[in-house]
């Protein structure tokens, strides 16, 4: 009994002493904070995804309050959050554009050729280290869904070995981009009604590209030749579309013999959003 009493008193006394010292320190080292920071933090989604370029939502809120970051830099919150923050900061908001993830591969299971049987860890990261495991194409989607796991917003589902991105849910945070060991996912800016993107990343020569995949770019350059606005150029055997020149006529997508040029854009997003 005596032992218990002594233990309780000593530990309680020590605890109280430290608490007292800490409470004094708390008053002495108090930090004056801008009240806007708390308000902005509440308006932000709080996922700490880092899509804005700052380490956490809190860092971002501090930067906005200081005037260092623009109010619409939160890609996750989109327009509604930007409007709210603009109200807190008392500034006018210009219309924002939308950034979404886009997968530069189009081949589902059955369309991409296998070169071996793979029974290792079912993860893209692991498969990529051993030269792509069973996938014959050195550039294509491995299909184990690292991006799906990395997505915090449930916007990616694996369909037949290829990620499908729901652009109404996609917030453009770029987590999937970092998760893909083959750098197949990029963030594309949607700021026109219709835009054209290349859904293949293969740098292989035409013959091999044709052998390993049914949905590959063979680097034929037809898109470059048919483009009336000088917007499509071949680089390293892959076409690149210059958004400044592209008038969204869609000729390249129609003439592509492998159907790897895909149509997307604000129309799709706005349409989905209205629904």
């Amino acid at each position: 009994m005596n032992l218990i009493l002594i233990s309780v008193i000593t530990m309680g006394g020590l605890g109280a002493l430290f608490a007292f010292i800490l409470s004094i320190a708390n008053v002495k080292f108090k930090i004056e904070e801008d009240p806007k920071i708390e308000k902005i933090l509440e308006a932000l989604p709080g996922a700490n995804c880092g899509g804005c370029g700052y380490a956490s939502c809190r860092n971002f809120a501090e930067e906005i309050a200081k005037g260092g970051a623009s109010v619409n830099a939160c890609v996750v919150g989109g327009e509604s959050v930007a409007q709210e923050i603009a109200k807190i900061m008392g500034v006018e908001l210009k219309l924002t554009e939308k950034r979404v993830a886009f997968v530069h591969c189009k081949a589902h299971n059955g369309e991409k050729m296998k070169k071996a049987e793979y029974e290792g860890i079912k993860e893209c990261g692991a498969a990529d280290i051993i030269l792509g495991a069973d996938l014959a194409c050195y550039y294509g989607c491995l299909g184990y869904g690292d991006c799906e796991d990395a997505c915090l917003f449930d916007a990616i589902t694996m369909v037949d070995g290829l990620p499908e991105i729901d652009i109404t849910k996609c917030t453009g945070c770029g987590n999937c981009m970092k998760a893909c060991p083959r750098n197949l996912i990029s963030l594309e800016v949607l700021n026109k009604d219709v835009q054209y993107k290349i859904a293949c990343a293969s740098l292989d020569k035409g013959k091999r590209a044709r052998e390993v995949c049914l949905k590959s770019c063979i680097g034929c350059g037809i898109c470059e030749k048919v483009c009336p606005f000088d917007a499509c150029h071949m680089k390293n055997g892959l076409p690149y579309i210059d958004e400044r020149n592209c008038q969204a006529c869609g000729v390249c997508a129609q003439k592509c013999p492998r159907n790897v040029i895909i149509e997307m854009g604000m129309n799709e997003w706005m349409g989905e959003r209205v629904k």
Partner: protein
Amino acid sequence: MKIILLFLSAALVNNFVLRYFLGICPFLGVTGRIESAVAMGFATTFVMTLTAAIIWFIDYFILFPFHLFFLEYVAAILVIASLVQFLEMFIHKSSPTLYRALGIYLPLITTNCSIFFLALLIPLRGYNFVQSVIFGFGAGMGFTLVMFIMAGIREELDFADVPKPLQGAAITLILAGLLALAFMGFTGLITA
């Protein structure tokens, strides 16, 4: 002379990180940049030195006279947690940049096993007050030294051509192993 030997023993020969494999999490986690690694090292040294002093008083003036040996662990946790909380407030006030650079690793000093080990080792070794403080300070400086060496190598490593399967965690662990091997060279310098 004995004090200097004790300091060298704690810092080099029986280095907490590379000899006892304690405090590995900040050793691998915060050694990306020299600046934050050294800051983390000094923060830990601060906590270690003060812990050594305070725990000596608590041990010899409160716990042992009342035969409360079983409360050593609780007392150590109490002291370390309070010190870290104090340090966090202090750094947040004095250097917000450093506070952000250290991030989650600052509160994690609380669970840094090397500090806890230090607190438990002091009564076992039977040091007096001055020896305890020197031992704590030496252990902290040893920790800082190892953090500094590791961060320096890892900064150079950013420009090195590391084979793909070894990139990231793998090469860091290999580095840690090589450093531990190098520190084996101090064994036998002092027998303490």
